[in-house]
């Protein structure tokens, strides 16, 4: 599977789920309503910038803090198909995979520094490779652990047969 899209870079470490989907919106559960508020804590214009199939690039420990599944739901429904970061917080990572909302892709810290905001990327999930079309560079993605790969391949935990 190859994903193609534009990258939206928010390179800070520790972008937490209060920033990704602020507290007052937790009472909302409608997916398209939530998508309007994605990343509102850091960029109120985020949802307007993103096209379907785009990527989010961020720093260490992305998605830390609250377990709110509203966070990957909001990102996914405004078009983000994958978040690329050197590390993810555990509940956010699980929510992305088990809920089938988007792919959490782990990369080296140095990769973060070499991809710029608005670059065009092609991501080959089977080869675990990111190709930055804008600067020609290629980067590797940490392969998914076996169970995670199986859950992703069947589209989410609800389809997974133990």
């Amino acid at each position, binding site marked *: 599977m190859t994903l193609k899209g534009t990258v939206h870079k928010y390179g800070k470490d520790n972008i937490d789920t209060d920033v990704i989907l602020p507290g007052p919106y937790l009472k909302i559960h409608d997916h398209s309503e939530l998508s309007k508020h994605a990343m509102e804590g850091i960029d109120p214009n985020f949802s307007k910038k993103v096209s379907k199939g785009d990527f989010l690039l961020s720093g260490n420990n992305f998605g830390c803090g609250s377990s*709110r599944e509203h966070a990957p739901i909001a990102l996914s429904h405004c078009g983000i198909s994958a978040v690329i970061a050197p590390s993810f917080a555990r509940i956010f990572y*699980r929510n992305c995979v088990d809920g089938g909302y988007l792919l959490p892709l782990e990369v080296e810290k140095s990769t973060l520094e070499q991809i710029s905001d608005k670059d065009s990327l092609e991501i080959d999930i089977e080869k675990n490779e990111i190709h930055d079309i804008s600067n020609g560079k290629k980067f590797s993605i940490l392969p998914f652990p076996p169970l995670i790969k199986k859950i992703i391949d069947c589209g989410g935990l609800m389809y997974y047969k133990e």
Partner: protein
Amino acid sequence: MNITEKIIARASERNTVSPGDVVFANVDKLMIHDVSGPGVIKVFEEWAKRGIELEKVWNPDKVWISEDHFVPSADRISAENITKLTEWAKKFEIKKHFKYGLGQYGICHTLSHEEALVLPGEFYVGGDSHTNTTGALGALAVGLGHTDIAYAMMHGRIWLKVPETMLFRLIGNKPSHIMAKDIILKIISDIGTDGANYKAMEFAGDAVREMSMEERLTLTNMTTEAGAKNGIIEPDAVTDKYIRQRSANPYKPIVGDDSPYLEEYTYEIEKLEPIVAKPFSPQNGAAARELQGVEVNKAYIGSCTGAKLEDLRSAAQILKGKKVKIRTEVLPAAQSIYIKAMKEGLIDIFMEAGAVVGPPTCGACCGAHMGILAKDEICVSTTNRNFPGRMGHIESQTYLASPLVVAASALKGKITDPRDVIK
């Protein structure tokens, strides 16, 4: 195996597990609240569209529901979430539903220990990140999102990767001006908000053994802020006494063998200072004395972290007979705690000091209601997170501290070390 590994082994019906193993483990207890509950209902609605129907909850008696984030309902959407959750709970025969305005209710994690809903040795999953709190009872308590909770509700199992464990040995006598909140803020400052990512944080040592259960719960509560999968303390006589005061249910305590830990840290409690985490991270700790004089507009005593009975007693000790200088709010963490505080005269102390005393609810901790911060407002709080916009406007600020520090700061209108106000 240590205690975390042993509980996972028991829950996954294996003789032994090692860090890195991925297992499906049987769930003993499960919690949802008025945010994750509707979230889980939404997940089941989406699954139903794809032909996967929830026929019944695997074991309704092992589930409980709390109403804590947006109650009493402050708007129409919150009110509708509550009625939807109530109907759904009835349909799926979940009887332990703690309803506001109908007796015992409060913050989910507070109920888990106040009602002894989780017992030592159990594998407990909660639809909230501070589920780690309950590990102080000697249980494996793990926070999960809506999809994972929905899966566990349907199948009574969820997948888990066995974590490495970091040991935190706390030794020496705890001075009266130091609370468990200071200790855990110091630890998070040392290791960072991802210092325990995917790991178990276990607390041991004579200082832990000397601590009351409520103080232990403060330690495990904030392991979430270090990224930990769970926080845990081996059960002992203190645990048993606490449980027995609340429940007659039998349990089989689990303790670890003498097995090695990934890393060990030792803290001499006598040498600690009251610690305050500055904006905008729980890892941004500094001594209260270093921050002396930082002006604050609000003092907030609330949340599963800092509004248990002993937290309220500590704050009342400082505020007794005095008047607050800044807006101050006290929200006991559960109805039963509110009642105990009332009987001890603590509520009188808060009211006479000028504070608002509010209903048990998560309140302002997550920016929900009950005292949201405006632009440029600065709050000192007994809560657990101070990320940007956490308690209100993106340009508001929160300093995290112990109830002693928050109460002392309420008297002065500035960050204050409690030693400077205790006679």
